[in-house]
């Protein structure tokens, strides 16, 4: 047993010391140092300002900030940075984390509670980190008889699909991971994966409640996919493009929400249904089917699905901003020069910073609207939901499509229109 201490022998002690010294000498001097030298001096990086850049040079440039700026400027324009950090996944995940915190406090205030309070001293700001650590440390329980490959793959696919939507959203002029000409179409193509993932996961769980939840998710998402697409189509008619950057730019003088309020409403309701938020949280209806298609999830599988859900929430709110609220448009509030009289290399671009600021503010506004129904509405029933999706919303979205066509052919908007600059 480990409770009794080992007998101390001086010979063993000296022997272990000699082994330790040998390992330190051999591993560090003969293997570790050469590897460090190779990395520092021989790994090639792309040339900046005519210099061949190595990590050693990069480290030496850290001492002189004026020489570091071009490197940073170079790095933040690489595809990897865009994909991983800024308009891509990290930005979306950070906003999603902020959303979770705001949702908790916002809902708590609405319900006369205090919400998270203790973790992180200030208003429980680190509660989410604590929850994440808890989820990571928990055991992942796989139900017996489940389809294990699909059970493992579905949560990853869910997060990947949610992140793929964020890759298509332009945050500022030129700041988009994938600037493709059929951006809106690609968004809807990716959103079509979600019911499939939910159904696959619920089927793989080999349990009754997830199965019912998965079928509900499928019904719900298919019923709301069509009004979702139709409401976005009237925006495409007005903008004359499927590229999301062009759509945002086309709203320069007047945002599309002024011309297409019904479309915006339909888009908002369909987004709520797509996100499975209250009052459309039927696939996770707690009092009927335990936790719906998430019943058998545990540990980080649940964490991944939640992360994916909130990244998707950010993506759809950002899409609403791009389609109806003019994207990044807003009054210039940032100064032209951050440091007056500075004439070196610049990475501060007032237009871009301003665009990012307004985009984030608008997105958070829309996210707050997404959060609001959770405080005031009960869940609705599946037949009412399907009736709403198939009958009411489709008709409503057609109304504004005709309005959009009338605006184009009446010469109000579009090329050479009255209100076009």
């Amino acid at each position, binding site marked *: 047993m480990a409770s009794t201490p080992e007998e101390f022998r001086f010979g063993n002690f000296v022997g272990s010391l000699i082994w330790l010294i040998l390992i330190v000498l051999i591993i560090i001097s003969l293997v570790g140092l050469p590897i460090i030298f190779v990395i520092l001096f021989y790994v090639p990086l792309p040339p900046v300002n005519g210099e061949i850049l190595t990590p050693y040079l990069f480290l030496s440039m850290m001492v002189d900030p004026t020489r570091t700026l071009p490197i940073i400027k170079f790095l933040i324009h690489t595809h990897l940075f865009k994909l991983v950090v800024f308009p891509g996944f990290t930005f979306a995940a950070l906003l999603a984390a902020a959303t979770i915190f705001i949702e908790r406090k916002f809902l708590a205030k609405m319900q*006369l509670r205090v919400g998270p309070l203790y973790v992180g001293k200030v208003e429980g700001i680190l509660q989410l980190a604590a929850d994440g650590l808890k989820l990571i440390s928990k055991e992942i329980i796989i139900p017996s008889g489940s389809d294990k490959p699909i059970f493992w793959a579905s949560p990853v696919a869910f997060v990947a699909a949610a992140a793929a939507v964020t890759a298509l959203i332009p945050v500022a002029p030129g700041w988009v991971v994938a600037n493709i000409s059929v951006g809106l179409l690609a968004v809807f193509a990716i959103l079509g994966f979600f019911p499939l993932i939910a159904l696959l996961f619920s089927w793989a769980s080999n349990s009754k409640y997830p199965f*019912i939840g998965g079928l509900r998710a499928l019904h719900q998402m298919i019923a709301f996919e069509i009004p979702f697409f139709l409401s976005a189509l009237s925006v495409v008619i007005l903008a004359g493009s499927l590229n999301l950057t062009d759509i945002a730019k086309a709203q320069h003088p007047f945002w599309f929400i002024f011309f297409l309020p019904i479309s915006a409403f339909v888009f908002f309701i369909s987004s709520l249904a797509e996100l499975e938020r209250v*009052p459309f949280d039927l696939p996770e209806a707690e009092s009927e089917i335990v936790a719906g298609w998430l019943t058998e999830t545990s540990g980080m599988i649940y964490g991944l699905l939640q992360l994916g859900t909130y990244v998707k929430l950010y993506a759809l709110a950002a899409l609403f901003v791009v389609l109806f609220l003019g994207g990044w448009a807003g009054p210039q509030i940032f100064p032209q020069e951050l440091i007056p009289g500075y004439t070196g290399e610049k990475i501060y671009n007032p237009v871009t910073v301003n665009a990012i600021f307004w985009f984030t503010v608008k997105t958070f506004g829309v996210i707050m609207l997404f959060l609001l129904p959770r405080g005031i509405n*009960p869940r*609705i*029933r*599946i037949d009412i939901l399907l009736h709403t999706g198939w009958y009411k919303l489709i008709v409503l979205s057609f109304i504004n499509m005709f309005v959009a066509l009338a605006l184009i052919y009446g010469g109000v908007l579009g090329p050479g229109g009255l209100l076009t600059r």
Partner: protein
Amino acid sequence: MVVLAKSLEDRIDESQKLGLQVIKESEDDRLMTLNVGPQHPGSGHFRFTVKVDGDYIVYADPDPGYVHRGEEKMCEYRNFIQNIPHLERPVIHDSTNITYSYSLAVEELVGIQVPRRGQFIRAIASELNRQVYTLYWLAIYGIFLGHSTMFMWPTGDRELFIDLLEALTGARVTHAFNIPGGVRNDIPNGFKDRCLRQIAYFEKRLKEYEDIFYNNPLLRQRTEGVGILTKEDAIKLGVTGSVLRASGIPYDIRKAEPYDIYNEIDFKVQYMKTGDSFARSYVPFLDMRESCHIMRQLLDKMPESGEVRSKLQPNPKGAPGEAYRRVESGRGALGYYIISDGTPKAYRVKISVGSFRNMLALPYLLVGAKLGDMPSIYWSLNYWPVEADR
């Protein structure tokens, strides 16, 4: 609609009459059997199995008894006073009312009168506890329908009445306040003003509840016309309390068989005629509003001073014979039938609770309903599983 069917086939015939698909015994694998409870978040300490065909429930079988504690048997081994603390365990959120009718029955057996001031304090405690129970019930009804705000608000406002009861009795939920002969102690100083203040605040809150919950179009869509219990079926099944009043029968024990002070109080019996899930959820809300009205009158008419409890010998003996008294609890008629053989202990005690009677309607209302309606039908029956099991 209700036919007292015994077997699955009868109930399937019943669902066929409702326009559903016919499911024969051989096609039983079409049906999916779902276990609701006791580990299910939508059940409580209670299990029922439902068979669903697609989204429709074709069969429902309640299985009470999960928390049976033998309260009736325990009453035979303790004397009349010792019974009080354990009798309020079945429904701790309504503990004053469940000991109220027991005290009335024992008083009838022992043959004592409660002083007038004691009767008023009993009624006040009873009304306060009715609010506590109904708010708790409403909170769970809210979360069953996915309305999280309606869970938090009543749970928070319930604290007001719990604080009042704590000031009155010394305990937050299990008060042991009603005893044969009166109440345990007199009201504290300043209780009347505090009570009136909180009632005024609570009536404002009730308006907000109505705005956010009962007038919500989504809730109306979801609960109106769901699980209709007609007047005749309600009488046939013997449901009581808010479920009976929601089916259009203005029956309240406080009005029908006034006990203690209630014949001097002026109040209306609240009822609705539709008998659907919405009516069953709205009648307790109307009762809460009426209860505020009753409490104001009780506080006004209460004598300023006097005894609250008549003297009772330490180990009272009941006269040989039987007594049956009942009160209107949060869930309906709550009666005690006590047989005494002249000793300090009861020979037999039978508790007749509203929860069990209301639960009998559950299988007939669930058949033909959709799975999404299950929580709203189940909890609108004003059913408290622990009380039904006793």
